[in-house]
């Protein structure tokens, strides 16, 4: 029998309403303690008006809701007390409830953890609860919502089923060699199918990371190309010092903005220059390390740069992440510059088109509707699963090795759903929950 847990589920501070949530076998008794005339007769999941009290003192008039087990968030009997949102009032009621034997304060994430333990949701869905609470951008809300309705779980389960099917075939051949003649020819295709499912999920994962972490866009290029003006134009506020003197920006400057619902860190960097020394040389090194982490690098080319120069600058980042534009377009008159966009931070020329281009780049693959893997934990598990399946294919006809790899792959996928999760893993996951959830 588990202890009954209680917590104030609304945020600290004054608000219109405050909610105390109680879950566990003593939930009714605990709630009865703070009802002036004892627990009124309650229809499940229907709000009932009630006078709250501590001891004989009436404190507030509010609502009470009963969710009998197993049809509740945690799978246990849950009672919710809706009061007016005074922190002091909530505290008084909480203190009274804690006097009930067998009732204790909930730990962070304990309600969700019980929900997972009681099979009300899997671990990935539980994590989406924390995600939606912590969401900072629109895309994070969408991704968390998709995960909450099980979009990720369904895909991971499908992948895991494919792995288990492959393993069942492999082990069937190994355990019943006389009855399964011919089945070994299906093994390779079964493993390949399982791998394709995982790799597909993993591709979503790379995009999902943009949602979880936000994207990094780094502006780079030779000194005095107009990078800082462009930076300011994109951010909409003068943050970078702009000067005609080359090398004005020595440290990377960062600002946060939202593009296509994504949280984007925009970074302005020191100009690339041959023969730079001292402080400026350090600035250039910082530019290179910023580029290493960038999702998109915007190369700003000064007017009149030669093709060979441009080629050298373009080598600073791999082509898939490169977006090259001509800067200081306001100073250039009627020069044809190939198919590259011409922008000017000063006049605003080309900026809306640049924003659109960035949006397109960041949302290719369809952020928002698609099933997304946003968590590093999920991504790590998927990568381990994919690696195991690659090895399973590599070992060829050594089926006992393939089976061992498939086992590792299935285990990694099970970690996402929490079906095979160790206590340590659960502790780590629920550590980022807040109390009352």
């Amino acid at each position: 029998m588990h202890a009954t847990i209680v917590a104030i589920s609304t945020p600290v501070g004054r608000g219109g309403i405050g909610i105390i949530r109680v879950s566990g076998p003593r939930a009714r008794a605990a709630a009865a303690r703070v009802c002036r005339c004892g627990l009124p007769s309650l229809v499940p999941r229907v709000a009932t008006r009630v006078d709250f009290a501590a001891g004989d003192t009436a404190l507030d008039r509010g609502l009470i809701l009963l969710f009998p087990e197993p049809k509740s968030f945690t799978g246990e009997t849950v009672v919710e007390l809706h009061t007016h949102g005074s922190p002091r009032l909530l505290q008084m009621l909480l203190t009274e409830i804690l006097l009930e034997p067998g009732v204790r304060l909930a730990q962070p994430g304990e309600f969700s953890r019980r929900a997972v333990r009681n099979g009300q949701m899997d671990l990935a869905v539980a994590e989406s609860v924390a995600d939606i609470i912590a969401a900072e951008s629109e895309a994070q809300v969408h991704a968390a919502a998709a995960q909450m309705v099980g979009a990720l779980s369904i895909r991971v389960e499908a992948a895991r089923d494919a792995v288990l099917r492959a393993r069942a075939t492999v082990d069937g051949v190994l355990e019943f060699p006389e009855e399964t003649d011919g089945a070994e020819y299906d093994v390779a295709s079964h493993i390949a199918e399982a791998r394709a499912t995982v790799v597909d999920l993993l591709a979503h994962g790379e995009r999902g990371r943009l949602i979880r972490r936000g994207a990094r866009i780094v502006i780079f290029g030779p000194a005095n190309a107009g990078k800082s003006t462009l930076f300011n134009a994109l951010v909409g506020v003068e943050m970078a010092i702009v000067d005609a003197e080359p090398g004005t920006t020595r440290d990377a400057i960062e600002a946060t903005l939202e593009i296509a619902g994504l949280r984007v860190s925009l970074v302005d960097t020191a100009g690339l220059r041959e023969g730079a020394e001292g402080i400026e040389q350090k600035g250039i090194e910082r530019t290179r390390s910023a580029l290493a982490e960038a999702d998109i690098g915007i190369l700003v080319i000064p007017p009149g740069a030669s093709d060979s120069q441009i080629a050298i600058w373009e080598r600073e980042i791999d082509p898939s992440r490169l977006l090259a534009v001509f800067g200081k377009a306001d100073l250039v008159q009627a020069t044809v510059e190939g198919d590259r966009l011409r922008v000017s931070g000063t006049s605003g020329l080309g900026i809306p088109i640049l924003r659109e281009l960035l949006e397109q780049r960041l949302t290719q693959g369809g952020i928002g509707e698609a099933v997304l893997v946003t968590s590093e934990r999920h991504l790590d598990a998927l990568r381990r699963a994919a690696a195991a399946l690659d090895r399973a294919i590599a070992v060829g006809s050594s089926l006992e090795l393939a089976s061992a790899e498939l086992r590792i792959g299935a285990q990694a996928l099970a970690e996402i759903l929490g079906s095979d999760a160790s206590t340590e893993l659960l502790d780590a996951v629920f550590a980022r929950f807040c109390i009352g959830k």
Partner: protein
Amino acid sequence: MRNRTSKQPRARFSWKQEHVPRGTSAWRPVSAWSVNAFDAIIVGLGHAGAEAALACARKGLKTAAITLRLDGIAAMSCNPSIGGTAKGHLVRELDALGGEMARAADLAGTHFITLNASRGPAVQATRVLCDRDAYALAIQGALKAEPNLTIMEGEVEALIAEGTPRPAIRGVHLANGAEVQAPLVIVTTGTFLKALMHVGSEKSVGGRAGDAAATGLSESLKKLGFHLDRFKTGTPPRLFHDSIDWSVCPVQPGEAAPRPFSLRSPHSPFPLRPQLACHITHTAEATHQLLRANLAHAPLFTGQISGRGPRYCPSIEDKVVRFASRDRHIVFLQPEGALSPLVYPAGLSTSMPREIQDSFLRTIPGLANVKVARFGYAVEYDYVPPTQLLPTLETKQIAGLYLAGQLNGTSGYEEAAFQGLIAGINGALQVRGEPPLVLGRSEAHGGVLIDEIVSKGVDEPFRMLTSRSEFRLALREGNAEFRLREVGHRVGLVSDAQLLATRARRARIDEEVERLAKLGKLQALRQPSIRYATLMDGEGDLLAPDLAAEVEAQVKYEGYLKAAIAGIARDLDVGDDRPVPMAIDWSNIPALSMEIREKLGTRRPTTWGHLRKIPGVTPPALNAIAIHLRRLEQLDSGSPQWR
């Protein structure tokens, strides 16, 4: 400390079996007025009972073995073969620990085969078709050779246990009123508890064709607080050898120079008896049609049999329903012995009515004119869900009472024998006051078998599979002796000379691996296709094939095992085998929350592995328990496991 048995009265009567011809009434049952005191009582002498009895007797315990029928000792009630995938592994492990099954199979073997011979060494498995009578005689011979063993014919009707809070076993009551006493009782009654045989709609009481059932013992177990459940199993019809048209059935050749199953058998001359031909045939579309048309008469489908059957050994009527897309199923026609007129058709287990068995058999190529010696039947029986057992196979409920074999819900001779051996060893160790033997999952497939059934329970008759083991690559038939003979020696069932022989073989393998390294050939041998014999051709003396195979396995799996085991060990600590004392008072550990204390009190975990898997037991809680246990051990330096 429990009472040492030496203080109890010695047996007054013992009918030494060597004076008595096998299977005659001269093996008198114990009479109503007699009281017999022993160190150990084994109830049932099937494959589990025989191993348990031998282990106890060989460890010097004055042992009584009680069986329903003397001539049913070590009978192969179903298929006449020993081994197979995973089962071969179990038999090699049992042999390395000092068991008897492998040796008996070598003595009785008429057809040896290595399954998965073309696959990796971890999944290669030996299967030996035996002369059914020769096998039983081999085991009976081993039993007869034990001076400490007394065999009695009779039905054990009740178990005697006394004491609180955990009663201790005191002995057994026989159906004729006699009482036999011992502080250790190992029950291995197989499928005989409340056994019911089904052929079509006919039912008869009995655990095997021609045998009775045991009813009293079921009730006695229930009275002692055990929960019992029901399973079913089945056996195919037996066919007359001379009624089969062998010319249309392809031969399944046996190995010309097989490797003996037992470390105790000589490599030459081997095999020990003339080898027989096995043949293969298949069911036909007509067979399936006939079976489908008559499902209404199958006890399995009419609801007459309620117990769950084994998924891995389904009856033929089950197979045509479950694998409806298959147009044929393989059938192995296995002669039951050189002198036996009978053939065992493996793959045709059934409990259909006799006339339907007769007609569907005739649709199978080679069986058009078949004569059936005995029809197939299903047996339904009581089993004791094995979560009621400790990993030693002692019951949690009653001290000194052990259960082993099919009674625990397993399936197969090999699974039964392995449990019998472990129960025998642990029972004897307990009587001696020595620490128990619990094999880890990383040590033996047998360790996996017992861990699976006692910690997870069974929902169908449990068959061992190598894929149940996360350490499959490390648990090979070929290295069973290196994994377990030291253990067998430690528990007293392996002699010094046997152990030295194994150590010498181990040294030869290690030296050869070293030599390969010096020659720079290890990398080459890691390739799946490169064999030791070709690689080392012309490099001086080569190892014998069995040792060479181990060298190959070791080298080919090495890197792989390291990576795989590291990954697995994260979730599944190898150190989880450490026992947790039974009688620990969980409510007495102040550092634990009430919730956890209550939970531990009801679950009563027996190892750290179990403890860790209980939801809510957090690392800090484990730490608190560890500190508490260490304090207990300091207070009491005896052997806490047996309290």
